[in-house]
C-alpha cells in the first residue's frame, strides 16, 4: 500500500535534509496534481476552506450549509423516506422544529448552544450518540463542528439556497488604487476579483506578455493557435485597442463557431451512432451544422435554446426550427433484440430530463428519479413532472426493424438544402438525409411517478410542471416544451443565466465561478465570486442573451489577461486558483491538441460542416468488439485525402468504441450530457503524442513547412518552435534542439532504411526539399516540440 502520506491541502509538507527527501517532495507534487480535478469538485471556496479557520462571522450559505448538506442531509434532508428521528435540516421549519414525542427539545436553538441538541450530538464521544453515526462513514472535522457551534451562538441565521435566490444587481466594489501597485481595472470583473484578493492580502502576479495573450485568447475563442502573421500583427499593433480588435476579429471567425459547437456537442451528447449494443450509425450532422450556423450568426442564447427545446412548437415552424429540435434526439437508442421497448422509451425521456437539468438548470435532477433528492429540494414528483414535458414524443423504445430510422424524423432533400438550408453541408451528396427531430403527440401521454424509477411501476399520475422553489410556472405559459423554454428564459429565473455565464467563464478560466457547473445545488461548490456571477448573469440578460458580448467582456478583463506564473505564495494559499491572482495554465482539450498539430503543420483542412469523417485510428478496434452486427460501423474504414485533416469536431463518434486518442485526452464519452471535462496527465497521453501517426505525419509536414520558409537549421528549428508555442525560442532551448538535430542527422545519414520508414508515416506525399536524412532529423525535432508540455498547454 501507500508508503508516503500525501496530503492534498498542502503540496509542501515533506521536509527532510537528505536528497531522498527532495525526491519525495517532487513526487508528492506529481501526485498532488493528479488529485486536482477531484479537489476542484469538492473544494468549498471561502476564507474558511482556504485556511480551515473558523471565520469571524459565520454565513449560513457559505459556511454552514455545505457541512449540513454533505454530512447530515442523507438522513435529515429532503427525502422523507430516509429521514431519521423526524429531523430535517434542509428547511428552516424543520431545523428549528421541536423534536421528540413530547416536543420538548430542539436540534437548534438560536443563540443557545447548551439547549441545542445538535451541538451535543456532534461533540459527544459516545459512539451510540455521535452524529454523523459511525455506520454512515461520514465525519465532521473539528473546525466544522466549531463552525456549527459558532453559527448557533451567533443566532443561527437561516438563508435560502443561494442559487435559487433572485439574481440581484450587485454593487461594484471600489478598489483603492495606490500609485505603486500594478492593479489594472479594465471592467467590473476586475473590481470583483481584486476586492477578493484584497480581502486575502494577495496580489495579482501581473499581466501576460502579448505573445502569451494572443495564444491564450485564440485558443479560448477558436480552439486553434494563432498563426505567426497574426502574432506579429498583434505585437506590432501599438494602439490601445489592439487587443480588443483582436478579440472582435476572433469572434467573427468560423473557427469561433466551431469551437463553441465543440463545447455544445458535449452538452448535447452528440454522436454519430446510436450507442448501446450493436451501436448502429445515425445521421445527425445536419443538426451539428445548424449549431455551427447559429454560432456563426451569434444567435441570441434564449432563441438558440428555445428552438432546440421547442422549435417544433413554434407557430408555423420553419424547417430550420425543426432541425434545431434534433438536440433532444441525440440520446442513445437501442436496437438490442429482446429489450422491453417501454423500459428504454422511459430511459430516453429520462435522458432528456437529465440533460435539461444539467445543461440549463445546473441541477442533478436525475437523483430524484428513484426517490426524493437526498440533498436538494427536488421531490420525486418534481422529477416526473419535468419528465412529463418530454414524455409525449411519438417514439419507440426499440429500433425495429434492425437499422430503421427511429421515429419521429424528417427527410431533408438536396433541393431544400440548396434553397433554404444552405448551412447543411451535404458533402457526401446523400440524396435524402433523414434526421431525427422532436414532435408532440396529438394527445399527451400521461406521465406517472414511477416507483423506484422503474418503468413498469407507475403510481401517481403527474402533469407537466417545474419545481416552484426555483420559479413557479406562470399561468400564462403552455404546459409543453414551449412553455418550459419560456419559463427557462423568464427574466426572474434564478438559474439559467447564472449557469450559462458560469460555463462561459469555465471556457476561459478552466474552472467556473461555481466549480461544479453541473451542480448548483446544496452539494455543489459555492461560487468563488457570487457577486461577479450575478453581475455577469445580468450582463448576459441585458445584452439580449448575446454570448459573444459576454465572452468579450470576460476576455477583455485584466483578470483574464494576467500572467500564468505560479508563485510559491499563491501555490500555497490558493492552489486551485479560485481567487484568480493569476491566469490558469491549462492542458489543451483532446480536440485542440489534434487540431493544433494539424494547424501548425499546415495540414488542417478548413472545410466547415458535413458528414463526420474517419481520420487515423489504430486498425481493428471496431472489428474486434463487434458481435456480427453493427452495419456500416462493423468496420472502421479510414477516410482518404483531406478528410483526415479536418478539425476534430468532425471526427466520427462511435459511442461504444470512441476514438481512442481523444478518449485518452479526456474527451467526453457522449453517453450523457457533460458540461465539464477532466484535464489529466497520463502515460497513455505521452504515447499518443509520441507515436500516433497523425502526430508523426504532422511533425514531418511541419518540417517541410519550415524548410520551405527558412534557410538555416537555426531558423528552421526556431520557426517550428514558434509555430507550436507561439513564442520565440530562447538561446538555451535552441542550442539543445540544434544538438538533437545534429545528432539525429548523423544517425539518419547512415540509416537510410530508418529515414524511409519515418518519412513514410502518414498519407501526405513525401517532398524532396532536402536530403532525406535531414528531413528525418527535422521531423524528430518537430515531434519533440509537439511533445513539450508548453505545446499542449495554454498559459
Amino acid at each position: 500500500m501507500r508508503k508516503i502520506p500525501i496530503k492534498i491541502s498542502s503540496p509542501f509538507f515533506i521536509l527532510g535534509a537528505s536528497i531522498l527527501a527532495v525526491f519525495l517532495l517532487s513526487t508528492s507534487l506529481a501526485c498532488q496534481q493528479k488529485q486536482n480535478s477531484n479537489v476542484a469538485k469538492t473544494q468549498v471556496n471561502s476564507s474558511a476552506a482556504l485556511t480551515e479557520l473558523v471565520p469571524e462571522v459565520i454565513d449560513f450559505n457559505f459556511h454552514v450549509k455545505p457541512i449540513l448538506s454533505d454530512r447530515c442531509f442523507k438522513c435529515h434532508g429532503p427525502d422523507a423516506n430516509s429521514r431519521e428521528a423526524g429531523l430535517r435540516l434542509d428547511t428552516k421549519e424543520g431545523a428549528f422544529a421541536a423534536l421528540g414525542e413530547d416536543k420538548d427539545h430542539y436540534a437548534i436553538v438560536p443563540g443557545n448552544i447548551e439547549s441545542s441538541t445538535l451541538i451535543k450530538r456532534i461533540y459527544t464521544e459516545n459512539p451510540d450518540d455521535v452524529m454523523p453515526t459511525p455506520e454512515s462513514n461520514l465525519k465532521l472535522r473539528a473546525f466544522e463542528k466549531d463552525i456549527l457551534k459558532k453559527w448557533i451562538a451567533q443566532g443561527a441565521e437561516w438563508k435560502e439556497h443561494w442559487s435559487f435566490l433572485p439574481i440581484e444587481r450587485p454593487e461594484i466594489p471600489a478598489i483603492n488604487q495606490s500609485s505603486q501597485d500594478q492593479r489594472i481595472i479594465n471592467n467590473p470583473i476586475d473590481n470583483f476579483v481584486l476586492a477578493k484578493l484584497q480581502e486575502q492580502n494577495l496580489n495579482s502576479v501581473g499581466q501576460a506578455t502579448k505573445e502569451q495573450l494572443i495564444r491564450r485568447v485564440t485558443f479560448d475563442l477558436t480552439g486553434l493557435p494563432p498563426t505567426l502573421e497574426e502574432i506579429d500583427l498583434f505585437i506590432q499593433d501599438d494602439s490601445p485597442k489592439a487587443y480588443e480588435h483582436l478579440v472582435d476579429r476572433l469572434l467573427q471567425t468560423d473557427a469561433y463557431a466551431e469551437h463553441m459547437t465543440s463545447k455544445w456537442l458535449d452538452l448535447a451528447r452528440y454522436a454519430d451512432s446510436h450507442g448501446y449494443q450493436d451501436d448502429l450509425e445515425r445521421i445527425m450532422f445536419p443538426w451539428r451544422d445548424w449549431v455551427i450556423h447559429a454560432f456563426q450568426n451569434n444567435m441570441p442564447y434564449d432563441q438558440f435554446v428555445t428552438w432546440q427545446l421547442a422549435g417544433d412548437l413554434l407557430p408555423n415552424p420553419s424547417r430550420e426550427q425543426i432541425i434545431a429540435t434534433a438536440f433532444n434526439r441525440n440520446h442513445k437508442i437501442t436496437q438490442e433484440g429482446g429489450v422491453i421497448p417501454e423500459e428504454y422509451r422511459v430511459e430516453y425521456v429520462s435522458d432528456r430530463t437529465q440533460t435539461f437539468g444539467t445543461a440549463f438548470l445546473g441541477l442533478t435532477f436525475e437523483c430524484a428519479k428513484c426517490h426524493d433528492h437526498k440533498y436538494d429540494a427536488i421531490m420525486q414528483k418534481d422529477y416526473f413532472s419535468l419528465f412529463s414535458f418530454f414524455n409525449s414524443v411519438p417514439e419507440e423504445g426499440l429500433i425495429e426493424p434492425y437499422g430503421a430510422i427511429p421515429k419521429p424524423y424528417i427527410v431533408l432533400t438536396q433541393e431544400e438544402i440548396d434553397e433554404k438550408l444552405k448551412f447543411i453541408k451535404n458533402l457526401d451528396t446523400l440524396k435524402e438525409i433523414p434526421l431525427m427531430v422532436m414532435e408532440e403527440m396529438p394527445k399527451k401521454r400521461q406521465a406517472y411517478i414511477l416507483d423506484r424509477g422503474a418503468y413498469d411501476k407507475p403510481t401517481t399520475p403527474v402533469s407537466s410542471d417545474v419545481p416552484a422553489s426555483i420559479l413557479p410556472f406562470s399561468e400564462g405559459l403552455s404546459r409543453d416544451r414551449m412553455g418550459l423554454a419560456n419559463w427557462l428564459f423568464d427574466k426572474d429565473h434564478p438559474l439559467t443565466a447564472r449557469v450559462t455565464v458560469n460555463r462561459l467563464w469555465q471556457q476561459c478560466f478552466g474552472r467556473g465561478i461555481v466549480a461544479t457547473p453541473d451542480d448548483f445545488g446544496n452539494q455543489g461548490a459555492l461560487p468563488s465570486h457570487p457577486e461577479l456571477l450575478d453581475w455577469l448573469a445580468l450582463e448576459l440578460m441585458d445584452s439580449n442573451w448575446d454570448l459573444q458580448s459576454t465572452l468579450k467582456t470576460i476576455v477583455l478583463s485584466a483578470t483574464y489577461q494576467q500572467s500564468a506564473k505560479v508563485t510559491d505564495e499563491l501555490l500555497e494559499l490558493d492552489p486551485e486558483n479560485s481567487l484568480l491572482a493569476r491566469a490558469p495554465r491549462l492542458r489543451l482539450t483532446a480536440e485542440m491538441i489534434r487540431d493544433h498539430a494539424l494547424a501548425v503543420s499546415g495540414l488542417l483542412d478548413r472545410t466547415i460542416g458535413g458528414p463526420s469523417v474517419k481520420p487515423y485510428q489504430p486498425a481493428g478496434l471496431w472489428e474486434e468488439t463487434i458481435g456480427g452486427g453493427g452495419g456500416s460501423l462493423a468496420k472502421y474504414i479510414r477516410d482518404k485525402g483531406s478528410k483526415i485533416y479536418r478539425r476534430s469536431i468532425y471526427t466520427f463518434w462511435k459511442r461504444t468504441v470512441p476514438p481512442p486518442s481523444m478518449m485518452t485526452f479526456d474527451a467526453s464519452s457522449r453517453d450523457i450530457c457533460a458540461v465539464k471535462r477532466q484535464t489529466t496527465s497520463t502515460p497513455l497521453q505521452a504515447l499518443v503524442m509520441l507515436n500516433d501517426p497523425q502526430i508523426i505525419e504532422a511533425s514531418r509536414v511541419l518540417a517541410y513547412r519550415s524548410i520551405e520558409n527558412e534557410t538555416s537549421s537555426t531558423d528552421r528549428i526556431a520557426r517550428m518552435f514558434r509555430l507550436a508555442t507561439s513564442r520565440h525560442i530562447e538561446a538555451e532551448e535552441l542550442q539543445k534542439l540544434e544538438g538533437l538535430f545534429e545528432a539525429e542527422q548523423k544517425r539518419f545519414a547512415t540509416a537510410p532504411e530508418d529515414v524511409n520508414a519515418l518519412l513514410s508515416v502518414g498519407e501526405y506525399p513525401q517532398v524532396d526539399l532536402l536530403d532525406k536524412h535531414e528531413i528525418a532529423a527535422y521531423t524528430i525535432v518537430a515531434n519533440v516540440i509537439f511533445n513539450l508540455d508548453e505545446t499542449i498547454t495554454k498559459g
Partner: protein
Amino acid sequence: MKDKIINDRQMQMNRRAFLSKSSLGVGVAALSSLLGGCQLFSPSDNGILNADKSGAGILDALHFAPKAKRVIYLFQSGGPSQLELFDYKPLLNQRRGEDLPESIRKGQRLTGMTSGQSSFPLVGSLFNFSQHGSNGTWMSDLMPYTSKIVDELCIIKSMHTEAINHDPAITFFQTGSQQPGRPCIGSWLSYGMGSMNDNLPTFTVLLSRGTGRKFGQPLYSRLWGNGFLHSLHQGVQFRSGKDPVLYLKDPDGIDRASRRKMLDHIAELNSKQLEEFGDPEISSRIAQYEMAYRMQTSVPDVVDVSKEPDHIYQMYGPDSMQPGTFAANCLLARRLAEQDVRFIQLYHMGWDQHENLPSQIEGQARDVDQATAALIMDLKQRGMLDDTLVIWGGEFGRTNYSQGTLTDTNYGRDHHPRCFTIFMAGGGVKPGMVYGETDEFGYNIVKDPVHVHDFQATMLKLLGLDHERLTYKYQGRRFRLTDVHGHVVNDILA
C-alpha cells in the same frame, strides 16, 4: 510558514538543477525511483478527507487484512448456460417438452425474443454430468479439465441479476449500474488501491472471440472506462499483434536510442518551463513520459511468451500458441499477474446460445475449459493462487425452456436473470465449495442467493476493501461500485 515554503521550494530547485545537470542516465534513474513512491490514487472519500490532517478516512491503509492482492477475471460474455455446464437438473430431461409451469415462472419478465412464444418447452442438457472431486461435485462433460480441479473451486450456483439483456447486464456487472457512465471494477481498484508496479498499467484488458459462436454479442470499450474517476484509472487493452498497447510502438525509423534522446530533450525543456512557471503539472508530465518510456519496454517483455517452456503450452492447450485466443490470454494473464498487475480482465465472447445451443456450446466450452484449469493450477504451482483471485462467469444465465423449436438434437435458450452459475478460485475463497442452490427446474434460487452487488462487495472484501467505504464523490453524491446495495457473502470466505 513562508520560510518553510521557501525552504521547500529551494530544495525543489536543487533537485531540478540536479536533474538538468546530470546526463540522461542519472536523471532518468532518479525519475524512475520517483514513480515508485507515487501511488496514483485518490483517497477513499474525496469529499471529507481532503483536508483531514489526521489521515482518518484516507485510504492509505486497507479496510481489512486482504486475502487477495490481484484479480484475474475471466468474463464469459453472452451468458453461458449454467444448465449445460454446472447446474445439473435431471428433472428437465425427464419433463422434456413439457411447458414451464407458471408456478415456477411466477411472472418473471421475459425478453422480447421469447415473450411471444406460445409455449415454453422445458429442455434438459444434451450433455452428461458426472461427479468430481472430494465433494462429488456435479460437472458437465463439456468441462473435463475444469472438472478435474473442482477441489480448487468455489462454485456459486445462486447468482442473480436485474438485467435481462446483454448491454445493461454486462454494464451492471462491471459498474454496478445498468446504464453506462460509472467506473468499472478495475478502475475502482486502481483508484482505491493504486498500482503495485512501476512499469505496467495496473488494470489491463484482454479480448478473445469464441469459436462456438464467432459473432455473438459485441463488447464496448466503455466496459473498461474510468467513468468519472481520473483517467489514470482506465483499463488498458492489451492486444495481440505488433502494437500490444495502442500507440505503444515507436514509429518505424525511430530506434530506442533516438527515443531516449528525444525524451531527454523533452524532459529538459519541460524542466525549464517548470522553473519559469512553477506549475507542478509540469513535473507530473515529466513523470508520465518516463512511465510511458518504461511501458515501451515492459509491455513487449510481458507479452513475449516465446520463452515459455513447452510443458506450459501443453498445460494451457494448443490454442495457447495462437495469439489472441482465450488460452493465449490466460497465459498472458498469468504473466501479468507475476508482474503484479492488479486487475487483469479477460473477455471471451460468444456465449449467447439462443439457437443451436448444443453445437455452439461445445466449441465455446472447448475454448475455455483447459486454459482456465491450467491458469488456476499454474498459479498454484507458482505459489500465487493464495493471493490471486480468479473469477469465471458471465452476465446472466439461460432459461430452462427452449427458445425456438425443440427437436431431438437441437434447441436454444433465452437470457435468464434469476439464477446462474459462476466460480472463483484462490484469493481467499473457500476451495472445494458449492454455494447456493436452485430449484429442480433450474429456474429459481432456493438457497443462498447472491446478487451482483453481493458478488462485488465480496470481491472487494477479499481485496481488503469495504464496499461501503470505497467511494468517490461526484456531482454531490458519494458513488460506490455497489451503488447503495450489496452484502459480503461471508460463507464463501476461507
